[in-house]
């Protein structure tokens, strides 16, 4: 079984497809390319589900690739090794799902340059899957860096015919901002990885960079804290933690709809995954020391950005700030350093991934019909598009944290986990103080719903959602309800 269900296939299939699509031998017919991409994504999703079905927490998937009989960089102990435990597998499945949904959603939003677009999407998919399954620090870093290239092009290009040229320049500026922030973060992270690699060896370990060979206990605590801080800055750019967040609203707002779905749905989760993998797992001692500071940052993330989101008038910006706010919750769950907090945090990554995907889809649909994203001028969507209205109400309720939907479970579990953390008083306080999030999120989301959807008059030209959009929204909603009713599906898999 292990031969058929292998991680390299999971990771490199999109890479190969990406190369295939961009190569000149592949047809440039729009419909063929799109159907091919959809088919590959569906296959990939099924394959991931299959892998998830055969997953065994005692015996996680591991595979190692050799080059000419040697490790990747043998003299530094760097291996080309993939390892997927339950967290990785869950996030892989989420990745596969979100890309599937995003590629279905691409039909109406992508008007030009199809080959390049789908190629870049698959490249990004491959890089993100690589991040989630890398079993070696440098391999992780490689995929982390590799992700920048497709992400840049996806954000910067004008995939639909431009309404005006100014929008296009905004795109490019925000893409450059994204790339510089990410690169800054990854450079600081590289310093952390290098230090960890060296001190792990010099404190009696082996010359190796794979996660299973890193034992940080022997490293002096001060250096551990230094390393941990460096890594946190790197992940904090992606997550984002508050002073490093300013790339996110621009990038999410200016990107095309499917791209925003991918960015908010998956890309932010790589930061949370990194904190879990490095700070939480490899260096628990240092993490315990810096957790109080981190918890306060998470609190600022949650509350401050919720207020900022309330002040926005652009739909996409509201959703972007709400996702920063939610990522603060993920961070808080990790800060709890107990089983409930951790599993809740992973669970919240999944549920927020689904919710934010749905929200961006709705925003995209509205923008496509009305050419407008300003909630003060939008009105009467409910009357024109009743089906969209139904989905929007449900998904917005889900994002607020109403029972029956997944975010309810994860938010409550996160806060319970943080309350139960028994080593620092600060965490409990932050957990208590972050409770207003539930109210604040309902404030800005209901403002969006109220201003945008009600009132106004019926406009005959506006069509209701098409089949493609229906499938996207329905599958997202299905996932939300599924995990809301049976949270144990994920919580048991994390095995905590």
């Amino acid at each position, binding site marked *: 079984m292990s031969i058929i269900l292998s991680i390299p296939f999971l990771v490199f299939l999109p890479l190969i497809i990406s190369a295939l699509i961009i190569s000149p031998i592949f047809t440039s017919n729009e419909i063929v390319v799109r159907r091919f991409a959809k088919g590959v994504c569906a296959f990939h999703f099924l394959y991931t589900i299959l892998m998830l079905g055969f997953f065994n927490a005692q015996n996680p998937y591991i595979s190692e690739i050799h*080059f000419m009989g*040697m490790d990747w960089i043998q003299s530094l102990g760097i291996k080309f090794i993939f390892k997927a435990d339950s967290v990785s597998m869950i996030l892989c499945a989420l990745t596969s799902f979100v890309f599937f949904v995003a590629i279905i959603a691409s039909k109406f939003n992508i008007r030009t340059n199809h080959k390049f677009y789908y190629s870049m999407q698959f490249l990004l998919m491959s890089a993100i899957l690589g991040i989630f399954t890398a079993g070696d620090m440098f391999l992780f870093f490689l995929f982390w860096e*590799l992700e920048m290239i497709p992400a840049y092009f996806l954000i910067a290009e004008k995939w639909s015919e431009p309404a005006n040229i100014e929008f296009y320049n905004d795109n490019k500026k925000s893409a450059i901002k994204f790339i510089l922030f990410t690169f800054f973060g990854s*450079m600081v992270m*590289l310093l952390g990885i*290098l*230090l960890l*690699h*060296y001190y792990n060896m010099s404190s009696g370990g082996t010359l190796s960079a794979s996660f299973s060979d890193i034992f940080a206990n022997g490293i002096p605590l001060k250096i551990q804290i230094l390393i941990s801080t460096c890594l946190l800055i790197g992940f904090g750019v992606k997550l984002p933690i508050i002073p490093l967040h300013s790339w996110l609203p621009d990038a999410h707002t200016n990107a095309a709809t499917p791209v925003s779905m991918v960015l908010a749905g998956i890309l932010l989760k790589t930061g949370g995954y990194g904190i879990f993998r490095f700070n939480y797992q490899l260096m628990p001692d240092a993490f315990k020391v810096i957790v109080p500071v981190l918890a306060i940052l998470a609190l600022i993330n949650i509350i401050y950005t919720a207020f900022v989101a309330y002040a926005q008038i652009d739909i996409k910006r509201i959703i972007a700030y709400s996702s920063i706010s939610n990522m603060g919750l993920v961070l808080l769950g990790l800060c709890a350093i107990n089983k409930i907090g951790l599993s809740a945090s992973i669970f919240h990554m999944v549920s927020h991934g689904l919710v934010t995907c749905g929200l961006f889809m709705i925003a995209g649909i509205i923008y496509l019909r009305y050419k407008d994203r300003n909630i003060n001028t939008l009105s009467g969507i409910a009357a024109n598009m009743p089906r969209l209205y139904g989905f929007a109400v449900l998904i917005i309720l889900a994002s607020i944290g109403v029972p029956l939907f997944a975010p309810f479970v994860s938010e409550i579990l996160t806060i319970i986990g943080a309350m139960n953390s028994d080593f620092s008083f600060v965490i409990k306080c932050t957990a208590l103080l972050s409770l207003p999030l539930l109210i604040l999120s309902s404030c800005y989301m209901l403002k969006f719903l109220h201003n945008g959807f009600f009132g106004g008059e019926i406009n005959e030209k506006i069509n209701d959602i098409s089949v493609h959009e229906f499938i996207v929204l329905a599958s997202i909603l299905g996932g939300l309800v599924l995990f809301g009713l049976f949270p144990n599906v994920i919580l048991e898999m994390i095995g905590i």
Partner: protein
Amino acid sequence: MLNDIFNILLPHIAIGEFIILLMILGIFMPLRQFKYSRLVSILGIVTAIVLLSTVQTEPQYFGFRNSVMSDSYTLLFDFIILSCGFLCAILSRNIIYSIKRHAYTYQAILLAGILGAMNIVSANDFLTLFVSMELMGFSIYFLIAAAKGYYSKEAAFKYLITSAVSSGVFLFGVSYLYGITGSLNFSVIYEYVTENETSLLYSVSSILIALGLISKLAILPFANWVVDVYKGCESSTLAYLSTIPKLAVFGIVCRLLVFPLGSSFELTFVIAILSLITAFWANTYAIRENNVKAILACSSAANSSYIMLAASLVSVYNLSTVIFYLICYVIINIAAFAYLNIYNDKNPMDVNSFAGIFYKNHGLTGAYAIAILGLAGIPITSGFIAKIYLFTAIVKSGLIFVPFLLTLLMLMVFALFYYLKILLPMFEKCDKNTDVPTLKAVFSQKFVLVSCAIIIILIGICPEKLIELCRFIAYNI
């Protein structure tokens, strides 16, 4: 004497013979056969590469009253220098077509520079080092000035003045070192230094020597030439200028830092701080520039400062990383300048003049993009591996150097910014009205660009063999 020649000098002599041959041909060949000059010089380089197999490396061989030496380290550097010379000679097509009358002389000078560079690496004596450095320097002045127009002359003149001043500083340091130790030979100086207590004068003289040498690498204080000279150079000359002197001078500086100058602790700090300042200067300077050649000049200064920082923290491990980085960097640089050579120097070199060029020339521009991404250190290129490997060396040198490394890493964000400035306009879609040039490349130019790009990717995917080689070389110095 004859023994010495047959043991080490055969490749050098082959190059020398071909220089004489080219000069004779330059007198007697008819004008319209200028094209064959390139073939002759390529033939000479290939002969020298073949003859490298006769060089004795195990054990180390010292010849000509200990003034020249050979071991596996010099052999490797000779090989890389010759290969770079090979590629540069292939690229010199454009310039030869523009100076038909002097094509043979140009090739002779090009070979003379290679000869000087090879001699620098195998020098074991300050006299040999100085003479071969001047040989390389003179040939570079002429190569720069050979291009048509006023700019090349100004560039050559500026390079000449800085080289003259810096070689003066170098020799001043050498004179004091000679006074202290009573000899110009590296081995004797090394013996003297290890046996006796070192004085302040020793440190001062070694700092002066190092300053004089590293000015060729565009490290401050003598780094101001780099932008001006790169702007005024023809691109095939740039491929030459940015690889061969660098290889040669790094080759000898590493050896000097390990042996004769190794006992000076102050030198380490001076060089480390100077390279840090250079990295800062180069990276911030490049942000304002809009000329591709100027940006590449700053990047060359920045890259050599990274290498110099690792090389100054002397250890065998660092040496292996330095060699690896140099090899990767040289290949990337040749690819970048090969593209500029195809693009043709007559066109404006402003970053915006490349707008939309990707959509007319997919393959060539893609290869160039790989090279620039390699400079920026993006994965799957050799630059990524080289940077990681180099930085492990700096981390290993101690906790004091972590702030240095942090600064370098921050500067690489700036670096990414200006590399993007080169790259992004090429992928920009422009209106149908503006005419984007379709590049006309002959086979030889395509060969250089594409083969370099392939090597960049190959090293990026499986670097292990090359790293092993570098480690072997470094442990055998």
